[in-house]
């Protein structure tokens, strides 16, 4: 397993290299620069600032310098926040997004797996149909519809929560639900499908014939296999939760990395944009690695290749 992890981590390096290259040239080819919106700058001052950051050098030389910095683990200085490094900024904003993402994932798994299990046990009952219709509605209510709707009902109409902010524990409720519900709907459908497939297999009938209790059959025998589709969905779900956090952080005015990324792109804050993209890509790749390992643990028929 260690060899598998080592190989996948090594494989990450060329991927990150390509991402850095693409992002670099994409940001530089685009019109406009990081200091366009600065007030009170004469052309001379702007030239001096650009020279300070090495932005006056030929493009290819800039590219080599940036890549050299990345090889040393240096994400460079930030253009918009003087004297702060990109690394500091990312590490400062990420914990907020991480908390939001983890809460959303927890909600998605808790609600989704429970609903899926119930629907699978009571297949074709009223309970099953209502759970699955609800989840279809959940899938068709994207975060940017769900978020404002939840805010409208629970914050503006009933005043249970604040409309925006991230200061108190209860400020976590609406954003995490907004982000979590969408994935809960998917997880419920996947759990139901996976469980139905497993429950129809012979070893379940054997267990039942031996007199195992329903709870034991479900949790000891079936869940491990039935949950497999959910686990393989976790990779795309994590990527989706990251993009979803852009929207949720914008709606609820949360100072996380997602909102940071959007504003930095608007500001043409090149180094922060690239740093954030690389950070997210690394995160996703390692998350997928973890998902692969869990999958093999759940299904011994699979092997780490």
């Amino acid at each position, binding site marked *: 397993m260690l060899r598998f992890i080592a190989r996948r981590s090594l494989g990450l390096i060329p*991927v990150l290299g390509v*991402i850095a290259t*693409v*992002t670099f040239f*994409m*940001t530089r*080819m*685009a*019109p*406009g620069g990081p200091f366009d919106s600065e007030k009170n700058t004469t052309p001379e001052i702007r030239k001096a600032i650009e020279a300070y950051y090495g932005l006056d050098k030929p493009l290819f030389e800039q590219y080599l310098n940036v890549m050299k910095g990345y090889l040393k683990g240096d994400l460079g200085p930030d253009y918009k926040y003087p004297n702060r490094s990109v690394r500091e900024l990312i590490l400062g904003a990420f914990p907020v997004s991480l908390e939001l993402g983890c809460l959303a994932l927890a909600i998605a798994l808790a609600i989704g797996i429970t609903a899926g299990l119930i629907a699978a046990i009571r297949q074709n009952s009223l309970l099953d149909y209502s759970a699955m219709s609800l989840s*279809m*509605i959940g*899938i*068709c*209510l*994207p975060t*940017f*519809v769900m*978020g*404002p*709707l939840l*805010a*409208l009902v629970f914050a*503006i109409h009933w005043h249970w929560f604040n409309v925006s902010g991230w200061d108190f524990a209860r400020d976590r409720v609406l954003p995490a639900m907004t982000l979590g519900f969408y994935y809960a709907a998917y997880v419920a459908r996947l759990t139901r499908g996976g469980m139905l497939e497993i429950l129809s297999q012979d070893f379940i009938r054997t267990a039942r014939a031996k007199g195992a209790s329903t709870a034991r059959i479900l949790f000891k025998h079936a869940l491990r296999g039935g949950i497999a589709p959910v686990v393989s969905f976790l*990779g795309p779900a994590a*990527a989706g939760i*990251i*993009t979803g956090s*852009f*929207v949720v952080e*914008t*709606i609820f005015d949360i100072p996380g990395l997602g909102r940071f*990324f*959007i504003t930095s*792109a*608007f500001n*043409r804050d090149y180094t922060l*944009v690239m740093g954030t*993209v690389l950070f*997210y*890509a690394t995160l*996703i*790749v390692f998350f*997928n690695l973890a998902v692969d390992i869990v999958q093999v643990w759940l299904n011994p028929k699979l092997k780490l290749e």
Partner: protein
Amino acid sequence: MPSKTLSKERAPLELEAADKGASLWSDAWHRLAKNKLAIAGLWIVGGLSLLCFLGPLTRYLPAAIRPAGLSHSYEEQNLDARVTPPDARHWLGTDQLGRDLLSRVLFGGRVSLMVGLCATAVSLTIGVLYGAIAGYLGGKLDAIMMRIVDILYSLPLALFVILLMVLVKRSILLIFVAIGAVEWLTMARIVRGQVMSLKKQEFIEAAIALGLRKRRIILRHLIPNVLGPVIVYATLTVPGVMLLEAFLSFLGLGVQPPMSSWGSLIKEGADWMEDAPWILISAGTVFSLALFSLNFLGDGLRDALDVRAAKD
């Protein structure tokens, strides 16, 4: 006919299909017609499209037979009637500039549906060609091409779409291309799987024996035979694409005012939800309804054409 898309218990139909070209499709149509949810989805999508494309034309009707609610254009501002709730003059109310919401929702639907269709067409073209080439040529090229797809799969591509939309001058065309360029991966995988199983069949051997060029075999013989799964996944791609467009518009990166799309209207609704909740409610409802029916239609088509998720 694509025998791989038919399951075993339908073998007699498959034989029939070989005799009469159209019967696979009419057979699929009969199965689809039995699926009430899918048919409801088809009606709703059709109805919404008609409303969106013809609705804004009603203001050219003669004033005598035209109700007051149908006489507005999507960009006409009426500063005396700002943020008015739904009434007889403005059936869905107005926004902060006094623009009639009904006509904005219909116009936005045009944009959203157009993006859905065009970006799907882009992703379809890339995905089908990529998958067919990788699947048919096989070997090292296939391994490299599919490795690239695997890598792209594992990346948060929405990041790049956002970057592209921020950095380049925004236009509708760019939205089509940017969204289409990231939504082709699943299509490529499915087509590759289908082509790999088709290429071992006799009719391809016959084509090779006749000395046809690879290009002709791929374009004329392979691609037409993977149409079933392609149609199913194209139908399922449309809501995905519309979702991405709405996501971009919500962040202010999609279509620009005074144009509207369902996504930008939802954004407007979210900004004004305290004073004008009807904007959010009507735009959100219509958008979700469209996604809902497209998803059901896609699921129904998948069952009717009996396509399973291609796993390889």
